[in-house]
């Protein structure tokens, strides 16, 4: 273990967990491959989760690593990281970013609320395609469409400058004041706090709409400039 302070391997319930230490990505990457090659026989066929700590990885880095591990008959299924960028990259590549499968109840406290809802926002400037998922404790603003099969789970509000056809959960920590706005609001399902709504068949042309909880019910109203 001391020979490789950059790479630690231990067994967990879901397979093996590899923890990467400090250093440049090039060094750590090489150390990982060396370690894996040394123990090739022992590791063959294993499912790996990788804790990359503070390393910030781009899609190319992660994709390359996954392919190199595939060559060695190892399958990478999860990447755990302290960096939101890396987490996003991993999610885009279809990798898990948490070890314990978090699918209990649709209740609060799923998102770690170190950020108070209302304090921070995340801007997503792209179209979210099927299978893409964003989880963020603050607000989420999307410039682009949210296609069916994509999901956004936000602690605060969700604003979509585009078509909303996927699933959105605003106020996921139980914030009933959260709202969802979109230019064309036709989500497969929409959740605010603990309420779940399904959009009725739309009649006529799409118009910008805002959804909020009013009188204990999820309701959509036209999204217009505020009248004084």
């Amino acid at each position, binding site marked *: 273990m001391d020979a490789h302070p950059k790479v630690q391997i231990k067994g967990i319930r879901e397979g093996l967990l590899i923890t990467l230490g400090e250093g440049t990505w090039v060094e750590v990457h090489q150390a990982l491959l060396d370690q894996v090659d040394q123990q090739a026989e022992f590791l063959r066929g294993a499912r790996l989760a990788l804790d990359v700590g503070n390393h910030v990885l781009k*899609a*190319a880095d992660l*994709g390359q690593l996954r*392919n*190199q591990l*595939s*060559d060695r*008959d190892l*399958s990478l299924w999860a990447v755990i990281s302290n960096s939101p960028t890396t987490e996003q990259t991993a999610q*885009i*590549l*279809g990798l898990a970013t948490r070890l314990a499968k978090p699918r209990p109840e649709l209740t609060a406290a799923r998102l770690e609320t170190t950020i108070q809802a209302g304090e921070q926002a995340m801007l997503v400037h792209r*179209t*979210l*395609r*099927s*299978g*893409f998922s964003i989880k963020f404790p603050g607000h989420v603003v999307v410039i682009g*469409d949210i*296609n*069916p*099969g994509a999901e956004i789970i936000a602690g605060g509000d969700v604003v979509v400058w585009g078509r909303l*056809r996927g699933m959105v959960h605003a106020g996921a920590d139980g914030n009933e004041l959260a709202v969802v706005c979109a230019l064309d609001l036709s989500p497969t399902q929409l959740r605010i706090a603990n309420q779940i709504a399904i959009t009725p068949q739309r009649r006529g042309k799409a118009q910008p709409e805002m959804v909020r909880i009013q009188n204990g019910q999820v309701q959509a109203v036209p999204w217009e400039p505020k009248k004084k």
Partner: protein
Amino acid sequence: MTGKVVTVTSGKGGVGKTTATANLAAALASDGQRVVCIDADIGLRNLDVVLGLENRIVYDLVDVVEGRCRLRQALIRDKRLPELFLIPAAQTRDKSAVSPSDMVRLCDDLRPEMDWILIDSPAGIERGFRNAIAPADIVVVITNPEVSAVRDADRIIGLIEAEEKGPARLVINRIKPGMVKRGEMLSVEDVLELLAVELIGMVPEDEAVITSTNRGMPVSLDGKSKAGQAFRNIALRLKGEKVPFLVIEEETGFFGRLARLIRPGGA
């Protein structure tokens, strides 16, 4: 020659990946290009059947990758088109027999000798799909005008963008003009509105495809078939030529044409 690697994929099964690969390959090869198709669907190979070459297989993709034969030995020459080759998939193994970097190496070896390397991807988004897109220069996504196929195409396009292989190009296959007209099938516009990628082909539903598949004779070699014409046009567009899209209309017969003559602006 430095061949371009084109991967044909879809996410959903049964939308026509193998048919499209075989027909594009045949269309390119009959145009004088040197083409090799690689069947990446290890364990469920089909491309050899569609091309009518199943009885000529001696070595396959896995044999090449594992070094049991030289690359040349696994190349099966087509019986009609001397410039068309096939590397078949292994039937008795599974997707993990090949890795993405094996595919990259294989394609790098083929590039100097070929104009086009077409890879027929398996359905799904797992290892087989990653093998198929790893070496790709161009990714062609096939979909049908139905909700489930379009949903899967959307997912696939997202994954292709994530792997930095984008932008994907789209072929909409098996369009039934009559149903579109009656509003019972998604129209090309509906599909494009959701997927928002470059369209390089619209292929009408054509019974000739089924008979040609059964006979092992790609429909793009049949001058009369509408689908064959559509595939030939896609091949030309891959080569960078500007070809107008076919007008996909139902065969209405004599009375339909007469009605259209009488009311040219109608419907």
